[in-house]
């Protein structure tokens, strides 16, 4: 209805140039949206679980990414459809909030949409479906809470944490050495964690990668790694017990912010200017030396002359260090970032037990290790791997593992993985459905069925008979009501008791998955009119 009339009978236009726009309304709009959402979920479905496959993505500039991380796949896919974009957002918000389960959340949303379509065909109003989903999700989340278990760990006994991280890593290409990587991730998180406040600032963990070597060489460095080398090739390559001056001012004569001109009109002025200039450099270097610094880390470059003066006074220096790295160095060494030479004092220096330069491979790549810092609250995970894509993928996997460890420190509750939690929820939701008198009952049942799709996908990807396996596990769970630990045996270990297999997931991760997926699906269901500009 593009044309309407106001109370005086004058026509006015609601939607301009309607013939140039495509418009989908009512049930058609919902169907189209659902189809788009399902299409996105279908892409990710085969990446779920430990036996999930990877996707190869070729970016707009021809660069290749190989990954099975849901968030990364969707981000790089560069989708055009609006609903597909919503799904991308969904996976991204799971990534921001929890860091893991980005694939699962999209698969879940896809399944919910699929079920919703079936209910729509039955003639149930979309709003009723949305409400039913909402109720069901509440039931599921509560049930998760109930079946969750606290698990105990502390600094000395972090084995349970490692086990959980291993569950996350086992679905990635790095699962060859998941044990060592999980240990690295857990140690890193514990090193920076504030156990009293139950908080972890993941910014303090820096992940660096360098091509070469193999995955087994990946290491955790209690300190900072900077991809820079000493400014002067002849400076010492190793400094013990370093006092570090962290500067954000260049080794150059000052540049006043106000515009000014120094006019030189006599020979005398020329001479004094020259002297002053030399003095500047001398003073700056002297200042660093006076406060007792044995290493200068500078955000800016410095002049050849300053460089030599530093070298001459035996003061090693690193230049062009990025702002983020500078901050990390400051945190790790307990130093202060000094914006002006005048403010440089002995207290503001950072301290590190050892600073050394290390070279790699046959090319002249060097990196600077800053270790044994005063405050070991900043660590670096240094990844090695056969090729660039491998390193990128390892970075993503480690990030996921770090997030999981962090979530566990925040909240010690866990649920069992391998689809066990979903199956338990599905049973609970199904049982709860009968209690609701309205039409929502159907939607709630549909929700329960959608929950089944996650273990189904797991079984499918692992090469098991999906329906057979799922029904077997379900009946097992039903038989022993208080024992919701049966899941899909993806790794072909021989048991489907997830407690024995040590497959955990975090409670908040799972809850978030269900809540986020439900929210997005509700949003999609409520859309009944899609107006888009047709091809220009």
């Amino acid at each position, binding site marked *: 209805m593009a044309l309407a009339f106001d109370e005086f009978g004058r026509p006015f236009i609601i939607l301009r140039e309607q013939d140039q726009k495509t418009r989908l309304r009512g049930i058609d709009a919902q169907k*189209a949206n659902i*189809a*788009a959402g399902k*299409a996105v979920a279908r*892409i990710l479905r*085969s990446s779920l679980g430990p036996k999930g*496959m*990877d*996707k*190869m*993505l*070729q970016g*707009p*500039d*021809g660069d*290749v990414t*190989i990954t099975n991380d849901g968030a990364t796949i969707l981000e*790089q*896919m*560069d*989708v*055009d*459809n609006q*609903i597909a974009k919503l799904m991308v957002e969904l996976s991204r918000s799971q990534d921001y909030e929890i860091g893991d389960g980005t694939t699962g959340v999209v698969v879940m949303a896809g399944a919910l949409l699929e079920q919703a379509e079936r209910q729509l065909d039955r003639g149930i109003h979309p709003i009723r479906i949305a409400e039913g989903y909402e109720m069901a999700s509440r039931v599921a989340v509560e049930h998760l809470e109930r079946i969750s278990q606290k698990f105990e760990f502390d600094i000395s006994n972090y084995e349970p944490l490692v086990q959980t991280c291993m569950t996350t890593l086992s679905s990635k290409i790095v699962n060859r050495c998941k044990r060592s990587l999980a240990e690295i991730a857990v140690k890193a998180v514990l090193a920076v964690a504030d156990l009293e406040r139950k908080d972890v600032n993941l910014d303090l963990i820096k992940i660096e990668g360098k*091509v*070469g070597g*193999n995955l087994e060489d990946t290491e955790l460095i209690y300190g900072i790694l900077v991809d820079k080398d000493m400014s*002067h090739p*002849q400076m010492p390559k190793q400094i013990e017990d370093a006092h570090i001056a962290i500067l954000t001012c260049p080794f150059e*004569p*000052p*540049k*006043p912010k106000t515009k000014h*001109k*120094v*006019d030189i*009109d006599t*020979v005398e002025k*020329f*001479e004094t*200017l*020259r002297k002053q*200039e*030399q003095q*500047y450099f001398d003073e700056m270097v002297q200042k660093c030396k006076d406060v007792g610094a044995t290493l200068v880390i500078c955000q800016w470059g410095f002049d*050849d*002359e300053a*460089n*030599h003066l530093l*070298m*001459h006074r035996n003061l090693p220096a690193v230049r062009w260090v990025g702002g983020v790295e500078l901050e990390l160095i400051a945190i790790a060494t307990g130093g202060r970032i000094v914006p002006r030479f005048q403010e440089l004092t002995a207290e503001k220096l950072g301290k590190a037990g050892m600073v050394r330069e290390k070279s790699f*491979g*046959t*090319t*002249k790549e060097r990196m600077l290790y800053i270790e044994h810092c005063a405050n070991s609250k900043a660590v670096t995970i240094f990844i090695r*791997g056969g*090729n*660039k*894509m*491998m390193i990128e993928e390892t970075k993503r996997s480690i990030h996921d593992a770090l997030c999981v460890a962090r979530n566990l420190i925040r909240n010690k509750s866990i649920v069992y993985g391998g689809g066990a939690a979903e199956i338990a929820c599905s049973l609970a939701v199904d049982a709860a459905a009968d209690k609701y008198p309205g039409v929502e009952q159907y939607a709630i049942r549909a929700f329960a069925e959608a929950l089944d799709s996650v273990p189904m996908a797991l079984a499918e990807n692992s090469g098991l008979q999906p329906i057979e396996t799922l029904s077997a596990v379900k009946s097992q769970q039903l038989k022993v009501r208080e024992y919701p630990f049966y899941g899909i045996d993806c790794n072909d270990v021989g048991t489907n008791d997830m407690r024995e297999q040590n497959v955990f997931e975090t409670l908040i991760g799972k809850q978030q998955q269900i809540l986020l997926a439900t929210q997005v699906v509700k949003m999609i269901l409520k859309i009944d009119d899609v107006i888009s500009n047709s091809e220009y």
Partner: protein
Amino acid sequence: MPIDKIFKDDASEEKGERARMASFIGAMAVADLVKSTLGPKGMDKILQSTGRGHSVTVTNDGATILKSLHIDNPAAKVLVDISKVQDDEVGDGTTSVVVLAGELLREAEKLVTSKIHPMTIIAGYRMAAECARDALLKRVIDNKENAEKFRSDLMKIAMTTLCSKILSQDKEHFAEMAVDAVFRLKGSTNLEAIQIIKKPGGSLRDSFLDEGFILDKKIGIGQPKRIENAKILVANTAMDTDKVKIYGARVRVDSMTKVAEIEGAEKEKMKDKVNKILAHGINCFVNRQLIYNFPEELFADAGVLAIEHADFEGIERLGLVTGGEIASTFDNPESVKLGHCKLIEEIMIGEDKLIHFSGVEMGQACSIVLRGASHHVLDEAERSLHDALCVLSQTVNDSRVLLGGGWPEMVMAKEVDELARKTAGKKSHAIEAFSRALVAIPTTIADNAGLDSAELVAQLRAEHHNEGCNAGIDVISGAVGDMEERGIYEAFKVKQAVLLSATEAAEMILRVDEIITCAPRRREDRM
């Protein structure tokens, strides 16, 4: 219900079998491309650039070939990438790694068509790679203790590496050079200290290793051509007009006389600087930046040899060999460390004059002068020598060596085969396939040499049935022979890197079940 398109206009999506096929075919195409360059009798490729000048490169270095390809297939890019990493990390085996990865994928393709799930193949490959590495570890030779033997090992490795390159005619000569150069480094892997100078003319045999340091520069006019017991100041400073570094300063004068005065002061300033430099008591001054005529004249007057425009690496190397520090300020002559050398002289190589520093304090750095008929030959010679140097410097650190000529592959294949027999389940097919892929390398070497590969490999396999056998393919005589006797050795580190990264790459490609290609970024139309 029509499914709306999800992707942007030009994007494409390939799924399941099709995606797998696309990546297998791409990867195999790349592997086949470089396959014919493998081994001592491998052929070369001509690469013509599309850029201006259509410059031509002739090479059989896998990494160089792959680097110059424009590839659109994502899986092929993975292979190019591993070859590049191999080059950076160990320097040699760049072709082998691609060929092995290609063979692994070829075998995997057969398994996939016979309905074995890629994940099962990966599991099998992993087990096989682990087993193959252990097999190699069992048979490594380590002569680190025995210096003389170690040196001969290195010689043999260098010769093995070089025999597949253009330098194979004079491989002994070059191997000797490379080993000498690497030994001078005393364990460091910093290959920058070895300078390679290419001068067209003469033949490859005329190339030589110089213990001193050669700088590809001319001596200024009117300055001494030969200095004994030189004291060298290595500097990085502006020797034109010293720019005023104080921000916003400018010269503003109101009369011509003033201009002259300022100019005089400027000249005076430069003179001061030169005097300060001279106060170091030097007789040779090497600067990274330009030296203008005026200071050059002043240096000439003082009888000091001044060399301008030595590039940054040249400066660094010079600092390294002569033990001097790179100076930029000259106010404290007594504390600046000067470089020393016994003799500086101008030498002629071919038609060019070069400056030769001999009798330097620290023997770490050295120069290799390559001579050859054309630029192409020289470029290829440099690449080959670089490969050899890389391998050697890595071997100095990790002194484990293996026999060559397809011997390691056969050893691995035998062990892997045995593992396949012991393993239950579908995995054993994948493990068997792994061993077939390993055997493909000696097969290719034989094929490239125009030998009867089927016959030779079968013979080799029979020989390897005996415990502790040293048989490999001797391409020169075209028969199976004892590799230890023929002195064909390879570095363990190279073989290990080839094995592991090829498996890793194959695994990565196998895991893919969908390829999504984004719409290419639109270029701004400049029309």
